[in-house]
């Protein structure tokens, strides 16, 4: 027998939860009181609940485990909404436990009351309002099960205060297994469809493998690499799929889409068969769907049936886990020994080679001003490409995605779907908490970093020495780029006129701040930054304000309609 509050903590412990990111308040004080005794769970007190959700998110992305958030009712809960939506868009497993006013007060506009189940409904995979204390273990166990299985996603568990009353005792029954008659995600792809897809692929003359975030969630990078190597397939990754296949592999064409490489977008556009694994043909990939890859037969593998034929119709749809489907395909290849026609593949690769030789990522360096691309390249050099890189949103995000090749999955942590500024720092903290021995970088800009900069204080309290690489161009770079290209250079409200002194700010929070503006000092400064292993270092790197991210797809065009540099003034 124990109280509801004790049940919450006991259930989390039994589920193997090691870290909680949270913030106490009236409705969850009983749970916090029970947590005070728990020795197996470390709680990180954040400075803003949005950041708690992003930390749990970064934690989940780096490890594949479910991230856990605990917040109070009302504003505590609503502050997590952006973080939940971010996780939802990128299919990240997360459980958010929110306090709620006592059951008898629900609906009375009580102090700090908010309908969290209603508020979060459009951005959760599922949600629960706990009705009885006895239900706590089962409900929370179900929440973790739903968050982690099928297409992962965030789950909210709203817990009214009376349910966790420490003065009442109830029997604690932890469920042996989770069975839900209405929830049984399909994992194994349909045999006939798998066979059919493989036949189409083997008959291709110009195939391409298109990997999305689902191929990372499926935990099967080895299988993907083995499959791609065996068939000598060109491979491209979405922003969410970076690292699912080694970025420096000779068959890797880099990222595709709006800021994709020439070779990736051209290969897609000219392909005759696309094998999409855990990708969702997002608008930032396809450009105009009417002009999308006109000659391609589309083989689409996804664990979520709604992702298939949502924007682009699949010719051979397969609902199932990427891992399961690929291993079935490899089994078939093993038994038949079939392969693609070598002559056709040689000619396809030579076509691709011509696009590669355009070297679309080349840029002009200067000895006066630091180019943002060169910061990312230097960062890659200094960290041997082994760092976990969490990104905010904007130009720096695209530069990092293009110039820091990821050879392993789960190293690239970014808000791809929702595009949440303020994600980077807390996400990098979540990574560092999960993997204390790793190098955890937050690549950011002067705009994004200010959206959750208060977490520098949390870093000090818990000793979370992330490295902040801020590409400071004193402007909202990506907004400015669009204004340059589409709005005739009218920089409406995209200029940051009163930036703080970031070095002093870092120091005020007890960290180290380093400013660099001279290109010749960049490498040395970065080496210094990464040599201070136990320190949070805030690198305020002043970069060229006028630099744009290229290539860039031309709106309403085909995949391969791209600008490769600034248009010449007329």
């Amino acid at each position, binding site marked *: 027998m124990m109280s509801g509050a004790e049940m919450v903590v006991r259930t989390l412990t039994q589920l193997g939860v090691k870290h909680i990111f949270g913030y106490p308040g009236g409705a969850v004080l009983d749970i916090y009181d029970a947590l005070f005794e728990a020795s197996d769970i470390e709680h990180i007190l954040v400075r803003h609940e949005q950041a708690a959700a992003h930390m749990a998110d970064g934690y989940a992305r780096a490890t594949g485990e479910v991230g856990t958030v605990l917040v109070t009712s009302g504003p505590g809960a609503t502050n997590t909404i952006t973080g939940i939506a971010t996780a939802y868009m990128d299919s990240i497993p997360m459980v958010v436990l929110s306090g709620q006013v006592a059951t008898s007060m629900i609906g009375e506009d009580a102090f700090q009351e908010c309908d969290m*189940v*209603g508020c979060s*409904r*459009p951005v959760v*995979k*599922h*949600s629960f*309002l706990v009705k009885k204390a006895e239900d706590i273990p089962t409900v929370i166990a179900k929440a973790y099960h*739903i968050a982690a299985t099928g297409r992962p996603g965030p789950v909210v568990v709203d817990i009214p205060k009376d349910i966790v009353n420490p003065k009442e005792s109830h029997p604690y029954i932890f469920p042996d297994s989770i069975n*839900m*008659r*209405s*929830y049984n995600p399909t994992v194994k792809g349909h045999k006939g469809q798998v066979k059919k897809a493989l036949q189409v692929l083997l008959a291709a003359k110009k195939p391409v493998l298109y990997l999305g975030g689902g191929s990372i969630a499926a935990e099967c990078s080895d299988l993907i690499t083995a499959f791609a190597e065996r068939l000598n397939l060109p491979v491209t990754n979405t922003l969410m799929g970076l690292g699912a296949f080694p970025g420096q592999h000779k068959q890797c064409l880099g990222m595709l889409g709006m800021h994709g490489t020439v070779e990736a977008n051209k290969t897609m556009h000219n392909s005759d068969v696309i094998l999409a694994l855990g990708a969702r043909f997002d608008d930032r990939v396809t450009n105009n769907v009417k002009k999308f890859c006109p000659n391609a037969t589309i083989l689409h593998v996804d664990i*979520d*049936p*709604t992702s298939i*034929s*949502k924007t682009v*119709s699949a010719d051979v749809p397969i609902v199932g886990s990427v891992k399961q489907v690929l291993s079935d395909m490899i089994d078939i290849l093993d038994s038949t020994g079939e392969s693609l026609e070598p002559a056709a593949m040689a000619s396809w690769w030579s076509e691709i080679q011509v696009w590669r030789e355009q070297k679309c990522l080349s840029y002009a360096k200067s000895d006066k001003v630091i180019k943002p691309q060169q910061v990312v390249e230097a960062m890659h050099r200094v960290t041997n490409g082994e760092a976990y890189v969490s990104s905010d949103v904007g130009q720096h995000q695209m530069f990092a995605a293009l110039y820091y090749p990821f050879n392993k999955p789960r190293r690239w942590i970014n808000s791809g779907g929702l595009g949440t500024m303020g994600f980077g720092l807390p996400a990098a903290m979540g990574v560092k908490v999960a993997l204390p021995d790793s190098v955890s970088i937050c690549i950011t800009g002067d705009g994004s970093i200010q959206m959750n900069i208060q977490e520098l204080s949390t870093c000090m309290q818990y000793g979370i020495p992330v490295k902040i690489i801020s590409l400071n161009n004193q402007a909202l770079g990506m907004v400015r780029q669009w204004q340059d290209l589409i709005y005739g250079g009218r920089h409406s409200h995209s200029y940051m006129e009163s930036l703080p002194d970031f070095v002093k700010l870092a120091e005020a929070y007890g960290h180290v701040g380093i400013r660099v503006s001279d290109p010749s000092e960049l490498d040395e400064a970065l080496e210094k930054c990464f040599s201070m292993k136990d320190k949070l270092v805030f690198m305020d790197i002043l970069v060229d304000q006028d630099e744009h991210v290229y290539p860039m797809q031309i709106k309403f065009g085909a995949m391969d309609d791209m600008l490769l540099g600034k248009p010449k003034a007329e």
Partner: protein
Amino acid sequence: MRRILSVLLENEPGALSRIVGLFSQRGYNIETLTVAPTDDPTLSRLTVTTVGDDRVIEQITKQVNKLVDVLKVSDITDGDHIERELMMVKVKADTTALRDELKRLSDIFRGLVVDVTPTTYVIQLVGTSAKLDAFIEALRSEAEIIEVARSGVTGLSRGEKSLRF
């Protein structure tokens, strides 16, 4: 095209709001909606009529199916089916001539007069939505309609085909 989707879902608080929310969130239409528990009280059956081309309907079906509370979804307009809607109409009936005419009209449509006062009738009618529309049109030219309540469409597939858990 108009479609009728039948949905079997957990009879839990909040389950209905997830379905309604999904429709508005993704910009799908709800023309009519009915819901009630089934012979198994732990399950509800919901019938929704919506419009969209094949692709939209496919997405709606898949999205509804994806909801954790939903057990099964079926587009009953895919095959032979029966659909019915119930309507009650309150009309002004304050002269003998009018009362005779309303009764006659109701009989033609196989409706029932279920409430009578010195000045009003309530006529109940069951049928397809088109039949109900036709009755309203016919009434309009004869009498003053005071109010109308329609249940929304419900229906079943014909024959062996069924939506059960």
